[in-house]
């Protein structure tokens, strides 16, 4: 068979043919059949992804000429979208988060939607009349409008009605204008905490399903001091304010001094979500994104209530958690992208969002719609959700939020573990944050 010498030329020729073939196959394999489609980048769990697909299908039925290709984010959307955009493959429509979009806006990644709104005065007027100003202002940075809000994701409390009844406790407030104090909240949480003979908790009064160092700030804010003034591009955050610190300390003491909430060690084998779902926790702090999980637990009889207000505050507030839709500045399909953003953030898309039961709409027409009410028929205190956006305090909007986030994680951690008092934030965290804000 090999009676002829296997020459170098033959070898090189063969290698060349193989190489060319593999390059050809590779480029064919990576070929993009949807090159003309509008790309939509978002982060979602499987259920939320389904809801988004419903909106996309509804959009495509009214806009058959615009094809939409979805790009689902991994666990760190900012990192992913930065890489995409820096590499010249920025998706046309991007989900934007209230705390992090400013970094992209400042770097020129996002389109100023004021230009689109100016060309579409009818939609702009409709949006203005129907929207909640604090939410749309969240994405107004440096004189531009970099996203339109699409859902409210502020925090409130879920509570287990059966556990309240068993303990003989009155139901907590059903609206944001009815206050309950830190003291009332603590007394209630203590009455709902049960322990076995060895002192180990078998039922917790309160659990947190959000990010603890953000929740601590939420309690600080609910003691009468906002996170910062002004909201946009602040040069100082109120981590050195006595009332804010008092609120943070109150939150830390729930797990520490008062033992009405689980410590981090208690949450390693069972998540706070599971504690609430399985009836081992009476109240859970979280946003609407938890609603579907709780409502799937058939034996769980729950409702929602407002956050408690501290002694220095005369009102209870949620936080302006919101995500919006933005358009990439480099998008070659800006007009198509604008049509999609208009649809999803306008009355039709918002009604669909409300009826999905997965998100709280940001337009008044969406929150008051029959679809939203019927999607939440397991709860009675619907006003906690529908009035939530209007009763929300803001978090800072700054391009350097990622650095602030890292500092908060570092410095609030010891306070939550009970290693340091919250007053330590005055000198440690506050100075470090001010330094970052002063010299980003």
């Amino acid at each position, binding site marked *: 068979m*090999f*009676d002829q*010498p*296997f*020459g*170098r030329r033959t070898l*090189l020729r063969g290698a060349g043919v193989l190489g060319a073939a593999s390059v050809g196959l590779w480029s064919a394999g990576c070929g993009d059949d949807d090159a003309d489609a509008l790309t939509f980048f978002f982060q979602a769990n499987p259920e939320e992804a389904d809801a988004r697909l419903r909106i996309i299908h509804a959009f495509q039925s009214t806009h058959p000429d615009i094809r939409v290709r979805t790009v689902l984010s991994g666990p*760190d959307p*900012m*990192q992913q979208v*930065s*890489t995409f*955009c*820096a590499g010249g493959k920025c998706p046309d429509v991007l989900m934007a988060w209230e705390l992090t979009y400013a*970094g992209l806006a400042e*770097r*020129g*990644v996002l389109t100023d939607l004021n230009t689109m709104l100016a060309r579409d005065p009818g939609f702009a007027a409709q949006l203005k009349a129907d929207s909640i100003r604090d939410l749309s202002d969240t994405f107004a940075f440096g004189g531009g409008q970099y996203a339109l809000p699409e859902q409210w994701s502020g925090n409130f409390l879920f509570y287990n009605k059966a556990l309240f009844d068993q303990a003989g406790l009155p139901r907590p407030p059903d609206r944001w204008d009815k206050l309950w104090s830190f003291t009332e909240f603590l007394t209630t949480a203590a009455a709902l905490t049960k322990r076995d003979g060895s002192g180990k908790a078998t039922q917790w009064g309160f659990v947190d399903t959000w990010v603890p160092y953000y929740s601590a700030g939420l309690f600080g804010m609910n003691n009468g001091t906002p996170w910062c003034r002004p909201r946009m591009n602040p040069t100082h955050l109120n981590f050195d304010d006595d009332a804010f610190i008092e609120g943070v300390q109150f939150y830390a003491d729930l797990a520490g001094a008062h033992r009405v909430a689980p410590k*981090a*060690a*208690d949450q*390693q*084998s*069972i998540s706070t979500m599971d504690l609430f779902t399985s009836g081992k926790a009476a109240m859970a702090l979280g946003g609407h994104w938890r609603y579907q999980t709780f409502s799937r637990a058939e034996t769980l009889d729950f409702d929602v209530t407002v956050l408690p207000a501290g002694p220095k505050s005369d009102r209870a507030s949620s936080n302006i958690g919101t995500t919006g839709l933005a358009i990439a500045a480099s998008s070659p399909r800006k007009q198509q992208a604008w049509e999609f953003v208009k649809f999803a953030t306008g009355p039709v898309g918002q009604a669909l969002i409300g009826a999905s039961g997965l998100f709280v709409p940001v337009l008044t027409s969406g929150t008051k719609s029959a679809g939203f009410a019927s999607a939440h028929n397991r709860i009675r205190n619907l006003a906690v959700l529908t009035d939530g956006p209007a009763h929300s305090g803001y978090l800072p909007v700054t391009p*350097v939020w*990622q*650095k602030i986030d*890292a500092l908060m*994680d*570092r*410095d609030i*951690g*010891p306070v939550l*573990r009970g290693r340091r008092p919250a007053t330590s934030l005055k000198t440690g965290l506050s100075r470090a944050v001010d330094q970052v804000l002063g010299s980003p």
Partner: protein
Amino acid sequence: MISIDDGGMPTKRRARAGRAFVAPNLAAIAVFMLFPLGFSLYMSFQKWDLFTPAKFVGLANFRHLFTDDPLFATALRNTAVYTIGTLVPAVLISLVVAALLNRKLKGISVFRAVVFVPLAVSSVVTAVMWQFVFNTDNGLLNTMLGWVGIGPVPWLLDPGWAMVSLCMISVWKSVPFATVVLLAAMQGVPHTLYEAARIDGASATRQFISITVPLIRGALSFVVVITIINAFQAFDQVYVLTGGHGGPETGTYVLGIMLFQHAFTFLDFGYASALAWVMFAILFGLTLLQLRLTRRSALEL
């Protein structure tokens, strides 16, 4: 029959063919190693966030790193603790394991294979597996400690213990490679030396200290250098085990995490490049020192 007759090929043609064969590899090295190295050095003198044009800042990144960034000192200290906490136990355990495996026993090959398993497991899988072991409430380790009356240890929740946990995983991961190298070296030690020592009445421990260790000094030095380099570059295990912030608090905030955070979270690629070159300089210095010490002791031998 295959016959490749290149005996008559002129030297020039042979040289050209040689260059042609080496060219793809050289190109790969140039594109994937030399260019990134040069580019990162260039970037270390710039301020660059991927989107806006890079701006020359001279030595500002290095100056800020050394004089104005308290987290650099924290990361350096944590990396040093992690390196020592990995190096010392890993080398000692590897020596013992290699010595145990360097015996002619029935079924020793099975043990040799088992010992090398951690080397085959990916770092991420390792970290996920150890997360279960380190669970405070009902993890394997605390359950076992409970059997002997020791209360639960907050392995991954307390900054101090988190570093201990990290070192334990690193040792577990480093031992197989070190053992392979040391075992190979041990198998090269002439048996006549041991026989002579035995005739002179030397115990097994004495033989190990006076014959084995000095004669595997080169391999030992290699293991030390490689372990230091690996420990200094730690990233994936830390990222999976305790998160991208190097938590809890700054308990596991090592240089690898700091570099990643500045590059991909803060989008400060200039600063991250400066940090990468500082890490390189430290490793280079440590390696030179180690080689010098080894050479000196080899001469003394």
